């Protein structure tokens, strides 16, 4: 998953970064730019379906050395937001369920206990206090 970004510096205060749009979604890219907007003006241009160009212009005088580490930081941040999206996609359903359980009335959304009861004597009885627990022996 190689991010080939190139630094073409039209002048000393800005930097262009190439983003692979199949790895970093538009939303992830926007979030990255959101955080960088404190120090930089971010302009995004979608070159095509595969590549987005981001031009970062420093709000105050930043050296070329600073810009190099900024590129790394931007890439890392973009990848992290892409990762977060992936995780969110896998967990949003169970998160909704979790929060629904957390804020619902006690007992309303609770799961039944899982697993077998595990007592041979009780399970052999046809009528027992534990008939609701009548799970087959494992």
């Amino acid at each position, binding site marked *: 998953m190689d991010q080939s970004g190139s630094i073409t510096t039209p002048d000393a205060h800005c930097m262009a970064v190439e983003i692979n749009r199949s790895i970093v979604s538009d939303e992830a890219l926007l979030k990255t730019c959101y955080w960088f907007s404190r120090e930089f003006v971010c302009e995004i241009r979608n070159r095509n379906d595969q590549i987005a160009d981001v031009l970062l212009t420093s709000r105050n005088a930043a050296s070329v050395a600073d810009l190099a580490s900024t590129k790394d930081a931007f890439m890392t941040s973009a990848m992290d937001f892409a990762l977060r999206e992936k995780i969110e996609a896998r967990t949003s359903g169970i998160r909704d369920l979790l929060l629904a359980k957390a804020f619902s009335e*006690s*007992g309303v959304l*609770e799961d039944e*206990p*899982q*697993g*077998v*009861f*595990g*007592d*041979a*004597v*009780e399970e052999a009885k046809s009528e*027992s*206090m*534990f008939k*609701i*627990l009548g799970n087959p022996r*494992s």
Partner: protein
Amino acid sequence: MRLTTTGVARNFEQSIVGVLTTEHLPREKRTERILFFAAHEAIPAEDLSGYRGLLSHDELHGAPSLPYIHRLRESDHLKDGDIVVLEGNAGTVRSLYRPYEQHHHLFVTERCNSNCLMCSQPPKDRDDVEALTERNLELIRLIAAPPPYLTITGGEPTLLGDHLFTLIAQLKASMPDTELHMLTNGRTFAWPDYARRFAALEHPNISLGIPLYSDFAGDHDFVVQAKGAFDQTVAGFHQAARNGIRVEVRVVLHKLTIPRLTKLVEYIYRNLTFAEHIALMGLEYTGYTPRNIDALWIDPYDYQDELEEAVEYLAVRNMNVSIYNHQLCVLRPALWSYARKSISDWKMLYLPECERCSALPACGGLFQWAVKKHSEHIHAIASLPPDAAQKCS
């Protein structure tokens, strides 16, 4: 001290529970009593009717019509006031309750739905609930002076179903000030209805002692030899707490629980924050333990790092923690204030080298069966520093 002995039984239709008397009583005082003759005691010639039964170390002549057990193997552990059960089928005499002791147990069943590798009371799949409940109800009735504490144990007490509720209700009625502690694997409490019914008993003084052996489900299930036990136990803790039932966490320390001990106490702190106490307990060399000793044994002296870390973790977070079943010479001195005299009188002894130990009065001793297996590092402590007195419980 001995709990059971056997002899030859006559005239029994069913088991008999009664209070031992060494003194021959007038007729009107005999109804709950079993008359006990120690070795070489003369047996009175007169009418012995009115007693529940007779117990004699020596042969009883004269063929009394009362149920009796004679020709006992041992009897010097039997004292006036002891509550015993005489079992006619095998001639067994079991001591159920000794008023002069500190630790009292109500044993309610041998059944259990777990099968812990180190179980000190290996379970039997025989339905003894009816018989034991009847016996225990009678025992409760016969206890003259309510003790401050009583432990309900087994097997797994919740397997009694409604009978457990009957027992607890009876205890509430006849000795409401007695602090009950019930040892259970907690699994049945995972069912909300059960937890609610238990709480509805509204016993004013009861807490549950529930073991947890790892923060990782698979490890806990392996130790207790029951799949899904971890999930049920943790859910059981929560349902109990939600219903206002007081809970304590128990951890037996051995080779399978020591490696994740710090992570376990962290799990307890974050998930079982409501636990009123955590007991870190030494291994008992009895029951299943000898069979599984290779998987279980670690010299307590060798896990002092982990134990100290776990105790500090909990203490710093203001959780109550105690160390049970450890000798002071084996524990780091920093941990002495957490050590309790936890071994029941009848199970406890000191080794010969202990006689010279200056910490003896404060030390809880060893289990009787520890003569077969104990730490290599038991030794007499020559002298205590001046401030040790208040540090040692």
